[in-house]
């Protein structure tokens, strides 16, 4: 009896400290990326606007989003390395890979749940639910990194790919995020928080009861002592010697790639400020550009004299205005010519340029009234 109680209280090792640390990184980045990302997908909604404002505005959350994305990418590089180490150096089984067995397990689990079959499937170290989640994280992260790169570096992307991939990446990024968040909220929450609060990701251990239900096949192997023997130390040593140069080179390449990702172009973060078009009253040509002698010539060649008189002394004809020694501003002068006040014919910039008007104005100002 006592032995049974002891047996029931027995805890089985499940996750190493580094694995648990990776999981914490994943929690922080996933939650942070969702909180800063989804409101951008739904920016037109009021709840999204409220969230964005609470977090300090859209530019702030974009910076936070990029920092978290960078951490997640770095973690992905680390994870790739550690997986390679476990598989290649330590010779562990790739227990996360799905197989026919998982399909059988799902079917048996469903039929058991529905009462059609008598026994719960005996599940391996990583059961079908966990494999689905892990592979979803891998798939999701890859999609997010690729589509994130496209949005982060749209100019670089469109030098190689058609421009249309950028809005497509935006659609994929947002939808993939929605898929990930919904999956976590439904599948992950139910399996490790609602159905049973599974603390193994934080304590590293799992109770016997949980092991029976979720990893019966693994428990049997452990209890029968049938765990595959570890690699002989000399093999591990030999493989380590091969692994490290490879790992260092890959790390350099991947971290270099990551830095390139972050820095290849600035446009997404600091687009050059928009040049304002010329606004306000001033003409591009100023009165100071005018030369009186050129103005005198233009007065003749442009036939101003015909109506305004040889010396702009006002005409005896229709233009009863003394232009000689005019006191109006250059702007008003140009405006008058362009408008054509009273009986005067208006002249566009194609007919008399602003420069020519500056010359004419300069000449008129030299005349005695």
């Amino acid at each position, binding site marked *: 009896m006592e032995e049974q109680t002891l047996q029931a209280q027995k805890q089985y090792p499940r996750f190493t400290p580094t694995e648990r640390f990776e999981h914490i990184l994943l929690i922080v980045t996933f939650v942070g990326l969702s909180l800063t990302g989804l409101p951008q997908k739904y920016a037109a909604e009021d709840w999204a606007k409220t969230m964005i404002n609470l977090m300090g505005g859209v530019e702030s959350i974009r910076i936070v989003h990029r920092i978290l994305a960078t951490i997640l990418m770095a973690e992905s590089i680390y994870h790739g390395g550690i997986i390679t180490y476990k598989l290649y150096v330590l010779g562990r089984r790739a227990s996360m890979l799905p197989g026919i067995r998982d399909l059988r397990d799902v079917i048996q689990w469903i039929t058991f749940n529905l009462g059609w079959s008598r026994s719960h499937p005996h599940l391996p170290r990583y059961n079908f639910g966990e494999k689905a989640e892990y592979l979803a994280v891998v798939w999701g992260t890859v999609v997010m990194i690729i589509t994130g790169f496209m949005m982060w570096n749209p100019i670089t992307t469109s030098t190689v790919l058609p421009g249309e991939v950028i809005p497509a990446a935006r659609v994929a990024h947002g939808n993939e995020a929605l898929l990930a968040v919904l999956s976590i909220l439904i599948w992950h929450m139910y399996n490790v928080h609602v159905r049973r609060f599974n603390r193994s990701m934080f304590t590293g251990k799992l109770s016997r009861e949980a092991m029976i239900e979720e990893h019966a096949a693994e428990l049997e192997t452990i209890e029968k002592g049938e765990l595959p023997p570890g690699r002989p130390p000399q093999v591990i040593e030999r493989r380590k010697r091969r692994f490290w140069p490879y790992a260092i080179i890959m790390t350099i390449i991947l971290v270099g790639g990551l830095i390139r990702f972050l820095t290849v172009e600035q446009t997404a973060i600091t687009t050059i400020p928009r040049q304002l078009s010329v606004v306000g009253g001033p003409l591009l040509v100023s009165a100071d550009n005018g030369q009186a002698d050129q103005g005198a010539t233009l007065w003749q060649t442009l036939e101003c004299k015909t109506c305004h008189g040889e010396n702009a002394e006002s005409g005896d004809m229709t233009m009863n205005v003394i232009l000689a020694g005019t006191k109006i501003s250059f702007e008003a002068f140009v405006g*008058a010519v362009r408008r054509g006040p009273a009986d005067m014919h208006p002249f566009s910039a194609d007919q008399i340029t602003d420069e020519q008007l500056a010359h004419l104005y300069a000449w008129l100002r030299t005349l005695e009234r």
Partner: protein
Amino acid sequence: MTRNDRLICLFFAIGGLFILAGVALAFNMSPVLAQDSPTPTAVAQNNVTPTGDDSYCLVCHAQPSQTYTLADGSIFDIAVNPDTIASSVHGTQNESGKLGCTDCHGENIFPHTQPLPISSRAYTVQQSALVCVDCHQDQTSELVDSVHDNALAAGNLSAATCVDCHGAHDVQPPDVSHQTTALTCGNCHVSVFQEYEHSVHGEALFDGDENVPTCVDCHGVHGIQNPTTALFRNRSPELCADCHADVELMAQYDITTNVFESYLTDFHGQTVALFEQQDPNVPTNKAVCIDCHGVHDIGRTDENTSRVVRENLLETCQQCHPGASSNFPDSWVGHFPPTAESHPLLFIVTLFYNILIPVTVGGFILLVATDVFRRIRERLGRKDA
């Protein structure tokens, strides 16, 4: 008549007119009449009783070609044509009676004792500020903190004051034609006007279309704000949307009203809208309508010269994205909803997720449901047993 006699006559004439005008004013303000005559936008908030009679002043000032050369060399023209005033809004058509010289210029018996102004312009600016406000408080209060008012306050005498736009003795009703409005602004804002008159809006305006925006539709009338601020820029898409999202108005031109909505779903529009929502005074470098379409020189979008047709779009993008390649402009989906033909990749990706998300999420929900089902059954079974 001695000079004293003349003064007494004048006194009685003015007094009589005051009484007459007072009666007219009281009549005018009776509620029945007020209902019958809808208030025009620029009506004066009357507290001046017009004197109307200008004969005293016109003895001298009706003489043509009387000018003084002032200290700064400017010509101070003191001649006035009585017909000009009579045919202005302040003339015979004025509801509360024709204004007289002294209503604006004050009592000023000859010989005039006050010194000549320093410059003609200084006199205009000073008089505008003092005189027009007497009757037009609403309009002058709108001017407070406007660009022109601020420039005048900062000592820039070239900035527009009342009479520069409305005229002095020849003031005409301000709502005559939109063309007049544009031309009036163009008197000073020459370069802007030159851009505008050849724009899609300007050309339509001068073809007689009164629906198109002129200067005041975007910039306002008296309370014109600085259009170079972040605030103006962040809000500018809404300004364009005022007309371009108006289904009835756009139907006349066969222009899609989807432009604003599609802009808001795009990355640029989404960001600008968020900025506008959070703090409209924070500058954003994301494109607004005018960055691609132009400001005063907005052109038709179907002309070869348009900066937004595909052939010219790269150059437009490069204004903000200098390194953009020829593929880059295709990342802008456009103002029309994307279709399978126009954007196959976008369509496929959207379709993919429209299937993947419900299938995956639905699958998870079903799986969870079977587990919940078993647990409930087990619990009930245990109770039964």
